[in-house]
């Protein structure tokens, strides 16, 4: 290449690079970034699956359908307390395996079908039907079915006595029996909620409009002030942010912590994700409790929250459930960051210089980076760490392996969907699908909690269980990342702890 061409090429690249850097770091939002009451536009990172709320466990599907379909019970935010929606009151456990729900009267689906006990019973039967293959099955597997008792009373029958049945009900959306039998039900949703579907399904934007005949207004529930909602997919996060700044959308979801400062208004909420490292308590180096405690002491969780999550994460209190959950022990303290203590414990255990394996997955947000950071901390304490980030099904094999086949540490981010300590306790019980921990006391407490119907008493049992597991350092509980959204300046909305998005709670100022 001629010298003059080479010089010119380098000079042009330098100019382009400087200009690009200036353009990409601008934080000033143009005046077009304002929402209106007539239409709010929401950008999600991925296309929405078919709009059957009972079929898929998918966050974008929930965003699109949470204001269309309603359950019998829902969680209030931020307390997490169960409140009746289509049910008139909280249910009563009339027999060990039967919970009775009284339903509100005078409610119809937007296609005119009545919401009654028959509709409720069929909705529940549909989601628990094995042939339906709902992705919610693991959360509702204790439910055998439901029976209508008159027009507005329904009994939900469980396979075994299930004190958590009320916690499962927010997952089950009520669907119209006749419409749900149609082949096109997933492309033409019909619900009882404050918004109804207008157009779009599967691939492409989805449009909703206010349900002007929404029953909830009579019952004092929010009926929504925004007339129309448009949901579309913009997979690239920088494009999503650009669309917000250009005024093409009013709310963007799933922002990484690094981008929160680059939007007109950032809205955050404590989430229900629990990044955790499952430590193998049954085999290998980590079978020694001193090693497990050392692995906990060695990690500076505050620094991870500050640096990796830019402050948008709270340090976990040594338990794998969200703070709003039943059983969350506010008195439990996380293992302090103490490298000297970690080294001392490793020396006592004869583990200095030994190798441990840490497995993670790219499926989780910052899964690879967290594994690398944790490995660095463990190495600073005196271990050698081998980090593996295999393909997802190989990762799952590692996560579910038992005994010596389980790696020393497996990173997983669990979700407290039922807002109850049960899932985290199950992770620690001997027969838990992800458990590599054996403690008879924990097993006993788990069995007691599973049979305890009184919420406060169950909470007390869970607190004791998590305290025991924390002392045993069965897990390395890390953080509770916050959910981050970007919004137009005049859009008012309080994000929920469970990532749900009810459009009827959004308002636009001015």
């Amino acid at each position, binding site marked *: 290449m*001629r010298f*003059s*061409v080479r010089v*010119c*090429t380098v000079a*042009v*690249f330098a100019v*382009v690079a400087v200009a*690009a850097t200036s*353009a*990409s770091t*601008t934080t000033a939002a*143009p005046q*077009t970034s304002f929402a209106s009451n007539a239409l709010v536009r929401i950008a999600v990172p*991925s*296309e929405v*699956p*078919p709009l059957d709320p009972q079929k898929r*466990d998918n966050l974008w599907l929930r965003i699109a359908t949470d204001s269309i379909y309603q359950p019998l019970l829902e969680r209030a935010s931020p307390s997490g307390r169960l409140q009746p929606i289509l049910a008139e009151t909280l249910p009563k456990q009339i027999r060990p395996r039967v919970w009775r729900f009284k339903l509100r009267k005078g409610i119809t689906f937007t296609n005119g079908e009545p919401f009654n006990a028959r509709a409720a019973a069929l909705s529940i039967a549909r989601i628990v039907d*094995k042939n339906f*293959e709902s*992705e919610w*099955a*693991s959360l509702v*597997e204790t439910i055998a079915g439901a029976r209508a008792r008159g027009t507005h009373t329904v009994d939900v029958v469980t396979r075994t006595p299930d004190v958590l049945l009320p916690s499962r009900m927010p997952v089950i959306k009520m669907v119209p029996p006749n419409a749900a039998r149609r082949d096109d039900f*997933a492309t033409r949703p019909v619900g009882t909620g404050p918004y109804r579907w207008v157009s779009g399904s*599967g*691939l*492409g*934007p989805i449009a909703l409009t206010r349900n002007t005949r929404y029953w909830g207004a009579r019952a004092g529930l929010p009926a929504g002030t925004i007339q129309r909602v448009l949901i*579309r*997919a*913009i*997979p*690239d996060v*920088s*494009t999503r942010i*650009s*669309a917000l*700044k*250009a*005024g*093409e959308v009013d709310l963007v979801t799933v922002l990484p912590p690094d981008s929160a400062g680059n939007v007109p208004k950032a809205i955050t909420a404590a989430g229900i994700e629990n990044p955790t490292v499952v430590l193998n308590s049954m085999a290998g180096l980590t079978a020694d409790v001193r090693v497990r405690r050392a692995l906990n002491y060695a990690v500076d969780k505050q620094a991870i929250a500050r640096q990796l999550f830019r402050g948008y994460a709270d340090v976990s209190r040594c338990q794998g459930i969200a703070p709003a959950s039943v059983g969350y022990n506010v008195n439990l303290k996380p293992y302090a960051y103490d490298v000297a203590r970690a080294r001392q414990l490793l020396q006592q255990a004869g583990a200095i210089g030994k190798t441990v394996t840490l497995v993670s997955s790219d499926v989780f947000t910052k899964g690879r980076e967290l594994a690398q950071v944790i490995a660095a901390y463990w190495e600073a304490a005196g271990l050698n760490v081998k980090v593996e980030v295999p*393909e*997802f*099904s*190989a990762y*799952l*094999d590692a*996560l579910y392996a038992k005994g010596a086949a389980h790696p020393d540490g497996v990173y*997983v981010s*669990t979700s407290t969907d039922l807002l109850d300590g049960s899932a985290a306790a199950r992770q620690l019980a001997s027969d838990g*699908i992800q458990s590599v921990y054996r403690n008879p006391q924990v097993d006993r407490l788990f069995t007691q909690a599973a049979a305890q119907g009184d919420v406060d008493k169950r909470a007390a049992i869970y607190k004791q269980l998590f305290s025991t597991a924390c002392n045993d350092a069965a897990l390395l509980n890390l953080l509770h990342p916050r959910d981050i959204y970007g919004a137009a300046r005049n859009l008012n909305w309080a994000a929920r702890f469970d990532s749900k998005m009810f459009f009827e709670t959004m308002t636009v100022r001015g």
Partner: protein
Amino acid sequence: MSWPYVARRIAHGLAVVVLVSVVVFFVTRVLGDPAKKMLPIGSTPEQYEQFRERLGLDRPIAAQFASFLGDTARLELGDSIWQERPARDIIFERLPNSLLLLTASMLIALAVGIPLGLIAAIRAGTWIDTTTVTSSLVALSLPQFWFGAILILLFAVTLNWLPTSGTGGIEHLVLPALALGLPIAGKVAQMTRSSVLDELQSQYALAARAKGFGQAYVMRRHVLRNTLVPLTSFLSVEAARTLAGASVVVETVFAFPGIGYLAVEALRRDDIILVQAIVLVVAILVVFSNLLFDMFQARIDPRIRLGGS
């Protein structure tokens, strides 16, 4: 162009399509368990088994392959696991967008690249040549995902002239087409320049000039036509590369609803049925576009026709 030549090219293309489909079939099944990838963590073993049974993944691999070959021969591409409807329908909904984007980007590449290359060749050795070559080098070196993001920041966010993403009117096509087309324009300019310079030095061109014909006449009547041949070969490769590669990135950055974006979504969800179907359709398109370019080349270059006979 002789029919035996065309028949040979079609047979060759079919073989490529079959080979690509076979590779994708085995790769999607060998690289992990689709059931584990698609179902949520915490699903029970019964759920995994039920899922595998529904998709026929519990059958021996040979039986699955036999079904796959039979279905592919009938263009039965299966039902998308994620969207729960025929993969063929989903692809054909999105395919026109990709073809439109490809056409627009190729037109930009030609409209910008050929004139630049011509100017550089005619003014070879001057500052115009240096500037043109530098610009084309910069253009072809730009990574498309980055270039796309810069175009969005400049034209959509800062200037508010064009939309950032999505589909609609022609304004939604401009930025993605520029992001795809300008890097190709750089290559077209380079190729045109070197090809024209070669032709200008050829004996027939020198003879024409010696006879007294002007530069413009020689360019128009002789040089440009001969430049088309290598340019056509180059464009054939670029079109295939764009359809099967670069458009995936650009469509995702711009949320442009083509099959590239669809492929990313399908891969994200491990929807092996849709991934297989997309690969098959893209392979067919690449083979078909190669055939079209070959036929065009044979049309403009008699040496190919005679060689084919």
